[in-house]
């Protein structure tokens, strides 16, 4: 009987070792340890044994059963592990493939620039206001102290609807609207569409965009204006950017200045892009609000002073994104829009 048991053990272990799948594992369990299994039948014959033999064989049979069970469970683990590996292997995918079902839309680069500029000024305490695209001659020119015979008023410069109504040529009339309706202190910016009689080419468009800023309070100085612009330029283009204030002339500010910014290509070293000057020219116009403009809006120039600035957003957008043709901004080619 001992021999039979040993044989069963050997056969069982050999069977288990030669297994190829999880299902046959169960068959083996049944074959040896099921109700009619080989080991079970041997144990059934225990009654025939002598009193002395019984505990010895019994212990041996138990050990063999444990060993077979141990083997079985190890085999089961092995098979599970193998199955997992097989599954993982089978589930191989090509991760270089990109699905294109979910698309996120794109913000127009001009609007993105406007928003960036506005947010910058909001963080500096400016409020955003809006003004109409169709304006009166009074707000667009007269109240801004533009001389009656100024060339910018010509039909060859400005789009007119009637003698008194036009398409605004700059965002500056928003200044007038703000000063007429709000009381100082005032700190506003306004961005929007502007129009001038320019034929379309790679740097001109009859419709373009400006951003205007205005601060009115007691004791506002040119030094404050310069600080504000300096902060703004550094935040927008980087801390290493310098600004240069050049005296200029605008009818609605006095003193007036144009602002040059370190050349975007060489950061001020001098390169072909900036004709060796190190400056990127005329990014922005600004000045102290003309006392006549203040008066026109019912603000006492003896008590209050202020500054205003304006800039072309299209140009800033083009510089920022490296766009070389303004027409791209208004053609709305989907392949262009999806780049931003």
């Amino acid at each position, binding site marked *: 009987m001992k021999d039979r048991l040993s044989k069963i053990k050997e056969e069982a272990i050999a069977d288990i070792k030669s297994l190829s799948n999880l299902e046959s594992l169960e068959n083996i369990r049944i074959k040896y340890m099921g109700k009619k299994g080989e080991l079970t039948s041997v144990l059934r014959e225990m009654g025939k044994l002598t009193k002395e033999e019984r505990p010895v064989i019994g212990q041996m049979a138990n050990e063999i059963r444990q060993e077979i069970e141990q083997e079985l469970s190890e085999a089961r683990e092995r098979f599970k592990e193998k199955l997992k590996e097989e599954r993982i292997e089978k589930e191989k995918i090509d991760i270089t493939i990109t699905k294109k079902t979910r698309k996120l839309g*794109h*913000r127009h680069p001009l609007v993105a620039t406007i928003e960036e500029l506005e947010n910058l000024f909001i963080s500096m305490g400016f409020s*955003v206001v809006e003004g109409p695209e169709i304006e009166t001659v009074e707000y667009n020119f007269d109240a801004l102290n533009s001389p009656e015979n100024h060339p910018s008023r010509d039909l060859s410069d400005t789009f*007119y609807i009637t003698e008194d109504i036009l398409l605004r040529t700059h965002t500056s009339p928003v200044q007038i609207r703000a000063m007429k309706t709000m009381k100082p202190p005032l700190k506003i910016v306004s961005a929007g569409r502007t129009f001038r009689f320019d034929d379309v080419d790679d740097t001109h468009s009859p419709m373009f965009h400006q951003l205007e800023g205005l601060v009115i309070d007691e004791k*506002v100085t040119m030094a404050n204006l*310069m600080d504000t612009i300096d902060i703004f330029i550094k935040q927008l283009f980087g801390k290493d950017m310098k600004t240069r204030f050049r*005296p200029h002339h605008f009818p609605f500010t006095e*003193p007036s200045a144009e602002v040059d910014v370190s050349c975007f290509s060489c950061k001020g070293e001098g390169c072909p892009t900036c004709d060796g000057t190190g400056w990127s020219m005329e990014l922005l116009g600004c000045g102290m609000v003309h006392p006549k403009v203040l008066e026109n809006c019912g603000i006492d120039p003896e008590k209050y002073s202020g500054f205003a600035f304006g800039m072309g957003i299209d140009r800033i957008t083009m510089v920022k994104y490296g766009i070389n043709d303004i027409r791209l901004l208004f053609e709305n080619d989907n392949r262009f829009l999806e780049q931003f």
Partner: protein
Amino acid sequence: MFLPVKWLKEYVNLDVDTKVLADELTLSGSHVESIISLDRGIKKVVVGRIEKIEKHEDADKLLIVMVNIGEETIQIVTGATNLRVGDYVPVALIGAKLPKDIYIEKTKFRGVESYGMLCSLKELGYEDNVIPKLHRDGIFVMEKEYPLGTPIDKILGLHGEIIELEITPNRPDCLSIIGMARETAATFDRELKLPEIMIKDEVEDIKDYLESIEVDGELCNRYYARAIKDIEIKESPLWLQIYLMEAGVRPINNIVDITNFVMLEFGQPLHAFDLDKLKNKQILVRRAKDEEKIRTIDDQERILTNENLVITDGENPIAIAGVMGGMDSEVTEETTTVLLESANFNSKSIRLTSKQLNLRTEASSRFEKGMDPNLCKIAAERACQLIEQIGAGKVVKGHMDVYENVRKGKTIQLRPEKVNNLLGTDLTVEEMIDYLERLDLKTSLNGNIIDVKVPTYRLDLNLEADLIEEIGRLHGFHNIPIQPLVGVLTRGEKPYSRIVSDKASSILQGLGLNEVITYSFISPKVYDKIKVELDSKLRDYIKLINPLGEDYSVMRTTLIPNMLDILSRNYNYGVKECFLYEIGNIFIPKELPLNELPKEEKTLSIGMYGNVDFYDLKEVVVTLLGRLGIKDLEYIKEDKNPTFHPNRTGNLLLKREKIGVLGEIHMDVLENYDIETRVYIAQLNFDTIVKEAILDKKYRPLPKYPAILRDIAVVVDSNVLVGDLEKIILENGEGLVEKVELFDVYEGKQIDEGKKSIAFSIVYRSFERTLKDEEVNIVHQRIIEDLENRLDAKLRG
């Protein structure tokens, strides 16, 4: 404006190089746009004299000339036709370098050797527009003898630089060499040296040449005249021609050149009339008669109106005042006596005339900016001095001057503390006075106030603030230490409408739509292209008086044509699918023509094509409005909008008012836009959306009790709308229907013709308790009955 540095230095001592000059001028307010070097890299080009001219035996058009260049005489073959023996000409020797990297080598022309090249002014680097007519064709023959062998760049003064300046319209006084010398002197704190004007010899009396001057005082503030006799019209001396050419002016003849020289020098335009050609010895400045004609020196007949000012000889116009002289009285080679006009005309009138005649000249552009009448005399005297100096004629004694309203300098009071308050500086009174005096503004301190006397040529200085700018710019804005703003802290805000539109933008982008920007003006033809009825209000558009062309001539009353344009463009570029939106204004006039500003309505348009249908478009609209918290929306079928497909279009109603339209574009319209795929467009009134949007979200407790799901499938007439079924389901829900979801619409097999099967999934839930099957059954049954009663729906088995 072109400023030759050499010329500038005649009036102000400068020891800085041109780069520094340019930088400093820029920082004090005269913006230097570029520096142009006169050095054109010319090498080995010298003065030579033609000694002998022979014909080339084997070539009709070539000459063989012997040229004496001082040390030797060389043989040169040339095709020139304007040479005579004894002419002094520029000779490019072998190894010479000319502008544009042209090098001269020894060559052979049909067997004859040539040891160099004779040069024209163009070959020496002059622009066509400044080369005198005399020298336009052929070799540059010099007007007098020069030492043979002298390098030509010395004679032509080809060294130093010209500065190109941007002069702002408020500073017409800077449009002259002396004006810029004054700025330069102020910038560098140097003395301004004005030319001393003195005429040595004067003969006879002007009264023998001119009897009277009469002017229209409104349009001509001053008329100053002098006469010159015994004139010999010829080419100006080379130095004078070079001065003009460097400043961008073409030399004509000695008299005209002098008037131009003085105009460049002082800024005052002068005009010379041939006195012998005047019918009467008088000058009458008057308004032209309507239809009056004059032939101007450019040989054009000009028809004038009463708004134009003319100079006449008492009978006929001899010049359009301040714009251009007449051909009949022009200075020609035969001229011997000249009347020199130095006048001051009304800037507005000149501007109008120049515009009317579409004729802009150096003179008109100066007069229209405003000239100082006190300059008339100095300029005329200076011209006489120069005429005498170059021996062009004899100056007649005396002048005639009509000057009614003598312009006097004004005095402006300046408060020093105001200067520092506005600039943010702490300049002393002495510093301020110094800056002002440098600009020739005479000051006197009167207690705490500086009285500043403004010269009459400074038309731009009228207020205290103007003087503060002068101090600021001479001090240098870049020298003002920057200071942060102080005062009440303000919180930056965006208007609510912008918050809503920004939010809408991000929702739309999240839904995969790209933002576009299109022009506010469109072509009126688009209304036909999108098939708008002739009597539609959409056609009440605002027209521009002066559009850039029909395509940009009216203010849009709808965004749909622009959207179609872009979709068409992209479609025709081969872009497979497009999902776009624009938020922009449409312009609604209250009446036409406009008497007041129109209403600008913020409007949203959404456009798409590709693998999409109406429901994709509607999903975008529903999602957008849903996320913006807009309730009470209704979608009503629209079959009368001619732009859209009559069976695939709906109007969007908010609180029973139409706020937009969405649908498939009509095939006729698509054809007009060359689009061969289905296009879906929605347009919504964004102002209403802003008004109705609720961005504040409130938390609703999550459901605690389980839901019961019931599906329902009914067969109805095929024109019954899903929306109507949903409405009935919700009406009967007794607050227990949490959600109704359509999951199938079917027509075809097993369903009778003219019928369709619609299946919903209904979610029942109570927020107070666990629902029992029995109570749901009752509600569900009532829903079925109501569907049967009202829509003749049959429950499917």
